[in-house]
């Protein structure tokens, strides 16, 4: 009963005209960045982080959330029609989605992607409504040791799932922690690694780091090669999947939804992992696995449902524990902090309007996306024809404006350029930026909780292993760290390892 009252209150907040407008802007921009290759939700959210300052916290966060799940919808359009993933979670959709389009079935592919996403998004929201308050009440008893271990686990999971060498991913995570510690020590107020620069006293900003590593670096990588797009030119007809399509897709959508939701909750997981896992699961369960890669609708329905369910599930650790499970959620945490809010176990009780308003807006946003994606497909296709040599100078311009507006300081533009160059070389040398960014955000919290635990336990390291939740997190982290040394586990890791960069 309480939940229903809260949901009604949430809809009251979300249906306020200004919040509806922000929600629409968010999902529209999200679809746009999802459709356009080369700009992902991370760049778009960083860019718009300063804009959220001009409205209420509800409006700003509703818009940011809209960009995230909107990009999950939009990404599938590019994957299916151009065979280039609009964002990382749509990589898998390219495999069968583009094959379907080549066989003249672009309509059903786009249709099942949109409907599957809607069904999964709706389920994820209902589960979020039910799970989040329960988890928040459990999280109240979490102490610094639990928080430290949970964050350490999140970082290890992400490094485990990152493509390439695990040593490189761990190296990136450690460098991220160090970068996060630049500035005044939160306990002693001593300046650290500031090199006497007053601009570094508050630390390096998240926006220039993310825009540099993901936005500028991506542009630099794209300019060094000639981008060819294999756009499906035929007119797209019959967007609604037929009875056979629904029959084949019902199972994958259901399984993808459940799998995606749980993978989204896990620290270090998220939409990208979920889509890969769902594809692997569907292929394994299929009686005709040889159809996969040649236009199997299950290969579109499952991953698309999974990535949207994961996008919803990822809100749970952020809203209930205050811990962002992935880079996108780290940016959303930034949006909360910009407004002086701290997500965590007390947020649902202290600020119910905000929590339930965001949840309700996500449902409204999902409906808007269904309307945006199917009838407006022609417009998105036209947008895909925009040549990259016109697009990339505009991306650069938007990133500069976004970074400057986040601090009104040219120093941050220098920081962004520096991280752009670093990010370019990192990608060329096989170092992924995602662990660095998540560690950059978690670093200060990780340090704070470690030091608090040691002070509270009077220097007893046993505090991390005698508390059950902390011990379980550390044990799992240890298994994942040692795992890749064993040949069987190494093979499994290589199968699920992913490129988080896009």
């Amino acid at each position, binding site marked *: 009963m309480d939940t229903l009252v809260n949901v009604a209150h949430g809809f009251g907040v979300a249906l306020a005209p200004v919040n509806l407008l922000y929600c629409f802007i968010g999902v529209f921009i999200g679809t746009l960045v999802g459709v356009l290759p080369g700009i992902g939700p991370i760049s778009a959210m960083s860019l718009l982080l300063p804009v959220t300052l001009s409205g209420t916290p509800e409006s700003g966060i509703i818009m940011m959330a809209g960009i995230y799940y909107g990009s999950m919808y939009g990404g599938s359009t590019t994957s299916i029609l151009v065979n280039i993933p609009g964002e990382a979670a749509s990589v898998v959709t390219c495999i069968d989605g583009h094959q379907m389009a080549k066989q003249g079935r672009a309509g059903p592919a786009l249709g099942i992607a949109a409907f599957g996403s809607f069904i999964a998004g709706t389920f994820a929201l209902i589960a979020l409504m039910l799970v989040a308050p329960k988890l928040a009440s459990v999280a109240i008893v979490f102490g610094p040791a639990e928080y430290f271990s949970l964050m350490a686990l999140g970082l290890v999971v992400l490094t485990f799932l990152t493509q390439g060498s695990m040593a*490189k991913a761990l*190296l990136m995570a450690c460098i991220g922690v160090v970068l996060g510690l630049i500035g005044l020590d939160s306990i*002693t107020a001593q300046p*650290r690694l500031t090199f006497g620069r007053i601009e570094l006293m508050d630390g390096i900003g998240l926006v220039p780091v993310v825009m540099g590593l993901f936005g500028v670096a991506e542009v630099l990588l794209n*300019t060094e090669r000639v981008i060819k797009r294999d756009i499906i030119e035929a007119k797209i007809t019959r967007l609604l999947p037929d009875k056979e399509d629904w029959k084949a897709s019902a199972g994958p959508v259901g399984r993808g939804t459940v799998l995606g939701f749980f993978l989204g909750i896990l620290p270090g997981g998220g939409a990208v992992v979920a889509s890969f896992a769902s594809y692997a699961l569907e292929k394994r369960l299929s009686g005709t696995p040889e159809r996969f890669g040649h236009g199997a609708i299950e290969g579109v329905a499952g991953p698309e449902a999974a990535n949207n369910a994961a996008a919803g599930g990822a809100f749970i650790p952020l809203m209930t524990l205050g811990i962002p499970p992935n880079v996108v959620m780290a940016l959303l945490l930034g949006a909360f902090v910009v407004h002086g809010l701290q997500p965590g176990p007390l947020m649902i009780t202290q600020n119910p309007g905000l929590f339930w308003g965001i949840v309700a807006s996500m449902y409204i946003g999902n409906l808007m996306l269904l309307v945006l994606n199917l009838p407006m497909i022609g417009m998105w296709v036209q947008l895909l024809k925009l040549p990259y040599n016109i697009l990339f*100078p505009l991306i650069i*311009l938007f990133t500069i404006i976004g970074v400057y507006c986040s601090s009104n300081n040219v120093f941050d*533009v220098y920081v962004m350029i520096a991280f752009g160059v670093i990010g370019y070389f990192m990608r*060329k040398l096989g170092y992924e930026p995602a662990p660095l960014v998540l560690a950059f955000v978690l670093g200060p919290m990780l340090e704070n909780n470690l030091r608090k635990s040691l002070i509270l336990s009077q220097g007893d390291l046993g505090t991390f292993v005698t508390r059950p939740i902390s011990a379980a997190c550390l044990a799992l982290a240890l298994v994942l760290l040692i795992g890749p040394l064993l040949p069987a586990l190494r093979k499994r890791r290589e199968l699920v390892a992913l490129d988080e960069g896009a």
Partner: protein
Amino acid sequence: MSGEGNVKLRLDNSELWGGLIGLGLGIFVIRSGLKLKLGTIHDPGSGFVLFYTGILICAFAATVTVAALTEGGPTFGSRWRDARWGKPLLVIACLTAFAIALDPLGFLLAAVPLTLLLMRLVDPVRWSLAIPISILVPVGMWWLLKQALGIQLPSGTFGIG
């Protein structure tokens, strides 16, 4: 690791340099941690986490270095094979020039040439398209930010914008 462009004990082994840079960074972080004071395990100081993270950086960088020496790694040449490496350099040069010019010239006078240069230098867009886009987009963005959102962009010494 094997195949074309894979080398072990050579200076153009890119993996080796990645590991060595990591090692250098780790040593720097350890030193910084020590300078900031480690404190005690009962009351960790400002350098405590930095110091131990520096040790971890050194350990992981050493793993990468050892792997580069024993298993080999791709050369720099193979990493940039078929890449138009001059193009990213041009973009970086334009961005740096823009950042230097932003405060003295202001946003509009710096952004219009930047957009035009990027459109013409990398994969040239025809002049008839490049000029209007590189004027209209920065002016449009400036108008939107200043008039609609009330966000001030630098106007420079000439006070334009």
